[in-house]
């Protein structure tokens, strides 16, 4: 047995190994990822599939919230304004029903209530970014004047309710159809206002009283609907907070799974570089080293 002098295969293998670890270290620093193909870390790659999808969903849920939050807020504030307008109409009605008003006064009141009616209709037609807030999912103006209708207006929307996905298996209903708020058969805001206008115009005291009473109960109904929006707003806000936390935890999970610590990666790179140059230097030293170098050429 002799000592194997043919070290070339070993040296080549060493060179390849150190070159490979140098490449890996470089790639980690360059991409900021420790897992670039599934075989780098199969378990982390598998976990990243779910992380990626979940991150995408959370992004979209957050976008959904900011989209509908605007709608919900404007619906809520519109309903607030409706309550204010209706309260004004009720006080006009109460004043008109006390029997001491002149016809001219009643006519003036009728005009005022008519104005309130127009305000309420325009609030019912509130739109955000081209979409009508109280029209269900229909794209047409919810209320248009219609002389043939008892209320003087027709509802053109539908009764569709939109539930927006704001979390995995969590949808929040974000709209109420106008027909349920402004023109429900039992407690119609527009109907009561119209009757009040007609009664004031006709000086019909008992009519004024009936209309005023039904208007008062309509205020309560609208108030309830407003509570629905306030409630949705609260839910959306708290879900938004949760999603923000979720985004952070998903991002930190992703970093744990496939990310690198820059300091570790930089240290690894330096080590790999040092090792690579050491192997290269050793190879350069060993390869030309044979007995022939030390023999004198025959004279």
């Amino acid at each position, binding site marked *: 047995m002799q000592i194997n002098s*043919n070290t070339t295969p070993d040296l080549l293998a060493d060179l390849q190994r150190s070159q490979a670890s140098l490449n890996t270290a470089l790639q980690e620093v360059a991409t900021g990822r420790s897992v670039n193909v599934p075989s780098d870390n199969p378990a982390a790659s598998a976990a990243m599939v779910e992380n990626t999808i979940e991150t995408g969903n959370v992004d979209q849920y957050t976008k959904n919230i900011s989209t509908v939050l605007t709608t919900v807020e404007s619906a809520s504030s519109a309903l607030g304004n409706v309550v204010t307008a209706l309260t004004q109409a009720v006080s006009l009605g109460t004043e008109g029903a006390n029997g001491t008003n002149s016809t001219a006064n009643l006519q003036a009141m009728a005009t005022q209530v008519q104005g309130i009616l127009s305000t309420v209709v325009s609030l019912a037609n509130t739109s955000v970014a081209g979409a009508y807030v109280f029209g269900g999912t229909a794209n047409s103006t919810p209320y248009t004047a219609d002389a043939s209708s008892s209320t003087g207006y027709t509802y053109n929307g539908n009764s569709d309710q939109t539930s927006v996905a704001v979390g995995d298996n969590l949808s929040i209903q974000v709209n109420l159809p106008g027909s349920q708020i402004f023109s429900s058969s039992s407690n119609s805001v527009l109907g009561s206002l119209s009757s009040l206008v007609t009664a004031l115009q006709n000086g019909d005291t008992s009519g004024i009283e009936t209309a005023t009473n039904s208007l008062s109960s309509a205020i309560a109904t609208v108030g309830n609907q407003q509570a629905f929006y306030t409630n949705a707003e609260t839910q959306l806000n708290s879900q938004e907070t949760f999603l923000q936390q979720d985004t952070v935890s998903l991002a930190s999970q992703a970093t744990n799974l496939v990310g690198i610590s820059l300091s570790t990666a930089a240290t690894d790179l330096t080590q790999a570089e040092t090792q690579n140059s050491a192997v290269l230097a050793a190879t350069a030293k060993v390869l030309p080293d044979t007995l022939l170098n030390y023999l004198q050429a025959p004279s």
Partner: protein
Amino acid sequence: MGGLNATLSIGMQALDAAQGAIDATSNNIANADTAGYTEEVVQFSENPLSQSENGVTGGGVTMDGIQSVQDELLDVQIQQQTSQESSASTESASLQQIQTYFTTTGTDIASALTSFSSSLAALSANPTNTATQQGVISSGKELAQAFNTTASGLQSAQTSANGLVTTTVAQINTLTQQIAQLNGQVGQLTASGQNDSSAEDQLNEAVVQLAGLTGVAVTQSDGEDTITTGNGTPLVMGDQSFSLQTSTGSDGFQQVLDSNGTNITSTIQGGQLGGAIQMRDQVIPGMLSQLNSLASQFSSSFNAAQTEGLDSNGNQGQDFFTTSTDSNNAAADMSVSISDPSLLAINSVGSTNSNSNVANLSAALTEALPSNSASSAEGTTSAPLTASTALTDGSVTSITDSATGQTFSFTAGASSTIASLQAAIASAVAAGTLSAGTSLSFNTAGQAVISTTTSGDTLQVASSDSVLGEFSSTSGQTPAKSYASLVFDVGNAASNASTQATAIGTTLLQLTDQQSSISGVNIDDETANLIRFQTAYQAAARIVSTIQELNTVTMDMGSSQSY
């Protein structure tokens, strides 16, 4: 004897011996880098002593011959490790190619699932907007394309493994012919008592090359090698080689046949051929089947959600995805069948919450896919239930539908078989006792398969005294989890194959080092030997010239003109 002539002959022998040694050394140096070359060492022996009147004198030296230094056990180990290394490398190379399809690139299935899922969430916020509806359709197309690309990536890896089978078999046949020829030469020389180290070296090298192509077993008798595949199919016997053949199998792939035409594909292990066959017939089909069942299960679950709702025109939703009826091409043929955004079934049937079907569509992504296969192989008995399996008279079969809580029972009559049970299930579905989609069918292996749309359904087929089979369809995984487990499998296989290739490569390197230290040429040794034999040659030449001088002196003794 004795005298100057005897000494001259000693000198001549010494010259010859030194010459032979220099020859051998030069040959060693010349072949220092030749693959398979084993170092040749010159053997000298001392000649018998000769008796003369002056006593006993030496008889000189004889060069007996040249011997190769070999370790046969090491050779066998190197052959085996070469087979394994080459098999692992082939698999690793193919898996490296495959795993790029499972890397997050933006066009892979994970990215497509992400955008499809996001597009559905966006749809829920704005269900009637044509742009968001269109978004769902285009990201659905993206997802179908991602399935197509991944499937075709796997299929092309499979095709290239198949191509490798054909070329490797051709290489094996060329090599076995060479080996048979060399084997014949070595055998003849051995029979005549000669020794040709060069033919043996070439033979060994060719066998190692063959081992890299497929796993081999080598047995030696009478100086001749008999080489078979790992499983015993003869490749070389003496100076005869047996060619392997290929023919196209029923699956369209090349099958490997031995020289008698027997199919030995499944028995081949090791080497490039073994690795290629393993990838083509085991590893890739496993991945494709996971991918196909994900594609078909996800498609049918999303389609079911579509059918549950009404589209914008008030019609029942149509299928969103189309997949091939051939379950082996479900992923490759997946496509989106609707292009009109108004056909998205966003509305629920008969509900005031009419857009809530969007939530059902999203649920197809977040909820577990129905795992709808439980075959009799998974039952408590291994006996497969076939259509003609008789059910014992009076035995009761029951299916509990976990969705409706209803139980379907079937009491077997005198001549009832599994086929009659199959018919009874079909009519129960028609009558609404069992959920639509529940069926009993038979797979290609002839086993009874119960399919349900709801996970958790159980089927029990009982004979009078023993349970024939009990099936419980296990709860499936969400599409994301199911795809994630596929990614894990691919990554794990790629990482294992490359780790294995590296590990065996290291072992092989150590073995080759050992072989080098036994049979390899050490240039330093040879250089030193060269100087030694050069000196020996010079010294022997000096003997000859000295004897010549002495002879001249002796011859001049009688002449008058000298001195």
